[in-house]
């Protein structure tokens, strides 16, 4: 039975990875999860400099979901390389580095820095963080800027590039195609959805940043539709994500057209989720007589 998949030049031993920002830098889970069983580890978004992040409260639980406005707190490229890379580079599975910048040039510079770092599996371009004005959503909701960001990173590195698309667009098709044409090797679909929650007693927003990104099981049907639409628009592989809690959820994403999937918010409450998803996909394949996980990719039958 073959579970391995290709994301551009990147080979993953199975199609299950984790969503950026929900898995720290891997090391935080090392005591609880056998990281070497994953398809890949995806780290929290990094820009050149360290970032303090947004004021608290930064997350609030909502019905079947989580609203967050962390503000991409992080150690910056140098801090990451010093503090976390020595651990990550020893893993047997690839590390995908999620990167962002406040300018197009910064995206290129960060990509160059990681291109020079031996052992990186791929770069994921975050052009869709709903909580960061500069460097986040603005690049992901303007086709022209998106093309430029991907193009600059393409010039900066030969590493596989995965563009993480914003869900906050009327149609994902032109964005998926723009990323593909600018040289992206794959797409991540999707980031969290913009959202807000209000404390009715204090009449204050529940998040320090007022609005945030909605993730968790409540966004799964929205994400499935985006993956399905993006998959029809491009030839490059898609990593599907949004509310995955089980193998059944993951298989839905594969059938919608994703080549791989990422477990996100569930890592926060059930750290074993990704490993359970891998086991469950394997079991589903056995039960259905499938020999290669790729047989599931795009297997949804929409016609009459």
């Amino acid at each position, binding site marked *: 039975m073959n579970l391995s998949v290709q994301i551009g030049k990147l080979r993953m031993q199975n199609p299950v990875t984790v969503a950026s*920002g929900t898995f*720290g830098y891997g090391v*935080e889970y090392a005591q*609880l999860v056998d990281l070497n069983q994953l398809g890949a580890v995806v780290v929290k978004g990094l820009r050149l400099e360290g970032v303090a992040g947004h004021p608290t409260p930064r997350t609030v*639980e909502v019905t079947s979901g*989580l609203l967050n406005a962390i503000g991409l*707190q992080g150690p910056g490229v140098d801090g990451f390389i010093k503090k976390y890379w020595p651990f990550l580079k020893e893993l047997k599975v690839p590390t995908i580095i999620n990167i962002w910048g406040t300018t197009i040039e910064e995206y290129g510079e960060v990509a160059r820095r990681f291109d020079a770092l031996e052992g990186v599996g791929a770069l994921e371009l975050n052009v869709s963080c709903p909580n960061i004005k500069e460097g986040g959503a603005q690049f992901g909701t303007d086709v022209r800027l998106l093309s430029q960001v991907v193009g600059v990173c393409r010039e900066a590195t030969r590493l596989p590039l995965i563009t993480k698309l914003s869900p906050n667009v009327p149609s994902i098709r032109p964005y998926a195609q723009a990323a593909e044409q600018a040289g992206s090797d794959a797409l991540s679909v999707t980031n969290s959805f913009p959202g807000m929650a209000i404390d009715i007693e204090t009449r204050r927003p529940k998040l320090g940043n007022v609005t945030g990104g909605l993730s968790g*099981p409540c966004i799964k049907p929205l994400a499935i539709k985006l993956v399905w639409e993006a998959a029809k628009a491009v030839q490059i592989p898609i990593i599907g994500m949004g509310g995955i809690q089980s193998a059944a959820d993951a298989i839905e994403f594969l059938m919608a057209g994703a080549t791989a999937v990422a477990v996100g918010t569930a890592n*926060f*409450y059930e750290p074993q989720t990704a490993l359970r998803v891998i086991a469950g996909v394997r079991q589903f394949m056995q039960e259905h007589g499938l020999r290669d996980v790729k047989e599931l990719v795009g297997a949804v039958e929409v016609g009459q």
Partner: protein
Amino acid sequence: MVEQTVQILSNERHSELYFRVVVRAPQIAPLVQPGQFAHVRILPLKEALLRRPFSIFQAEGGTFSILYKTVGKGTEVLSQMRSGEGLSVIAPLGRGFTVPPAGGETPLLIAGSYGMAALYLLAQRCPQRGIVFVGGRRRVDLLCEEEFRALGWEVRLTTEDGSGGEQGLVTQALMAELKRSSEGRRLFACGPTPMLKAVARMAAEFDVSAELSLDEHLCCGLGVCLTCVVPIKTDGGWEYQRTCTEGPVFDSRRVAWELVK
């Protein structure tokens, strides 16, 4: 830290407002340090995703226990669970209190009602006894008085409405004690943020050290999501550190209180 589904041995009312759940967790209990917490997923609570953090109250042999008040759906459902049922826990988590060495300073413990639960293990493991100050709004908010007395500690109660102990705030009782004598004393506190701020101010005024267990909203509890950050002073200024990982216990002098809401 260990992730495990542990079995409830008992789950009973501890006082008018509080419940005490005891679980069998032989892999976890021996690891518990005073001030650490357990992150609990209440499995019958289907609509909630996140785990709920609880201070570990007592740990002995292969069991540990949690004291909790029903404050929301999670604790409501927890209070209805029966012995034999399973609780998914990740524990022990966080950096707890430093147990003072034998012959060292006399510990003064300050608890805002439920904060008592986080301080019991510290009192139990302190080589020398001290004084525990516990305050709450009403008499029913106070707990563990007998448990602390049984350890040989002096217990001073305060309530805001005067229904138990002295009328006033727990920090007023602490202030009176520090005025009497502050030398050779060391403070350990757990409670709501305004109380902790007041303890920090007194620690600075009387030049005594204080370890405070901060009361921040947690999400993953594992240092990943960066929800529970607090501003901690650094050489050049300050940085956000995680209550769940670098804390929940911080030295009061390290907290950038002017930035704490």
